[in-house]
């Protein structure tokens, strides 16, 4: 497979898998916003029930997401290692003209996200008992996701983990979104600033959407 060996081919795989995960994050934040509707995070229970109504589809979706994540992480790490091998000596003085905090720290924000994803799955999907997850059912016999989330985020430590991870998500997506268009060649000098702007906006809206849940619960607004 030529694409798996080529410098640009591997980047294209990273870009496509990354952008798919951005789409997932957008759908995820929209779904999560149902916690703001209904009493005691009520509507999220209905949302969760519908989402899990057909288990085979849930599992296919999970496997696809896992494959996307693995490809993205694998090439992210290998390309970063290759890049540091290509720059063996550092400048005594280096001033960047265009690179920014987000673009320079993609590997670190990415690794924070990876650690977070593992934690998040153990927390709210596996519901690891040692993490003190409040499992239960609501009056209609559905899994009580609303109570589980609200109980978890009354703990400042858990809320902080989610908020910090979403700041990393903002930085990662703010560079990654426009990077996708450049890498797959759907870019030129006229579209560049447009994609950069949209990328930052998408990253900001998604991050704020996610952060609002632990932040508002912690402040007892929900």
């Amino acid at each position, binding site marked *: 497979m030529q694409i798996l060996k080529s410098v640009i*081919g591997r980047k294209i795989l990273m870009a496509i898998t990354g952008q798919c995960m951005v789409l997932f994050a957008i759908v995820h934040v929209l779904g999560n916003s149902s916690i703001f509707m209904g009493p005691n995070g009520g509507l999220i229970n209905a949302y969760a029930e519908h989402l899990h109504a057909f288990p085979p589809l849930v599992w296919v979706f999970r496997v696809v997401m896992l494959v996307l994540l693995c490809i993205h992480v694998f090439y992210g790490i290998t390309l970063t290692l290759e890049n540091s091998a290509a720059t063996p000596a550092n*400048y005594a003085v280096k001033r960047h*003209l265009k*690179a920014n905090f987000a*673009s320079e720290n993609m590997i670190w924000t990415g690794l924070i996200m990876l650690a977070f994803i593992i934690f998040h799955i153990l927390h709210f999907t596996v519901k690891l008992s040692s993490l003190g997850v409040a499992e239960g059912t609501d009056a209609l016999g559905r899994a009580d996701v609303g109570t589980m989330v609200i109980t978890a985020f009354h703990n400042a430590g858990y809320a902080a983990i989610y908020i910090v991870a979403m700041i990393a998500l903002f930085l990662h997506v703010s560079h990654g979104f426009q990077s996708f268009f450049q*890498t797959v060649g759907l870019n030129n000098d006229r579209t560049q600033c447009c994609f950069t702007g949209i990328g930052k906006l998408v990253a900001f809206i998604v991050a704020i959407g996610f952060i609002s849940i632990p932040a508002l619960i912690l402040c007892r607004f929900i």
Partner: protein
Amino acid sequence: MSEQNGMNLTLYVWRQKGPNATGKLESYQAHNVSPDESFLEMLDEVNEDLIKKGIEPIAFDHDCREGICGMCSQVINGVPHGGQDRTTVCQLHMRSFKDGDSIYIEPWRAKAFPIVKDLVVDRAALDKIIQSGGYVSCHTGGVPDGNAIPIPKKAADYAMDAAECIGCGACVAGCPNSTAMLFTGAKVSQLAALPQGKAEAAQRVREMLKTLEECGFGNCSNHYECQAACPKGINVKFIAKLNREYMKSIFIK
């Protein structure tokens, strides 16, 4: 220029005896530097002083000294070519500095550009990339008539913008990943935009990228530092075009 108007500067210059020697920054004083001098002329004067003192002069690359050959390759105060917009080191003038300034002068740093001596690096890796596909393989014969091959003005301008690259390597030196994607992208885009180059576009992009990797350059992660460092202002749209040409090449035998 009267004597008292000259600037006194402290230079921190990378000195390295040979490719395998350990280098370090040495400090030198430049006295009475005229603001009208070019940066290289200032270094010439420093070298004359060093020779008089019996110290080995600073080795640096230079050739045309009019900003078109791409030989002068110095990272000045952390920026390739000194950071003045669209300016090579030879066209950088001392009026951009002020009396008492400290100036750090380092060579291009990249695995693909081994240091030969002091500020001189071996940029043959860029030639290898060109040799692997940066040309049209047919014999073109003598100079053809001006309009023998009709090319739309837009395409000609686009190709010319890409062809402006002087191959100095500032894109690699400025890049946090030391990649030559802007250099390669400029050549691939230039040839792919013209009828003579289109025929071999797929093979060209494959070969040039293969060589780029073999030479030890890194991968592009879209910092766009290259465009900012380029003395000819080559746009990163040519990297997008390179990526596009690569995508097309996957489907062409």
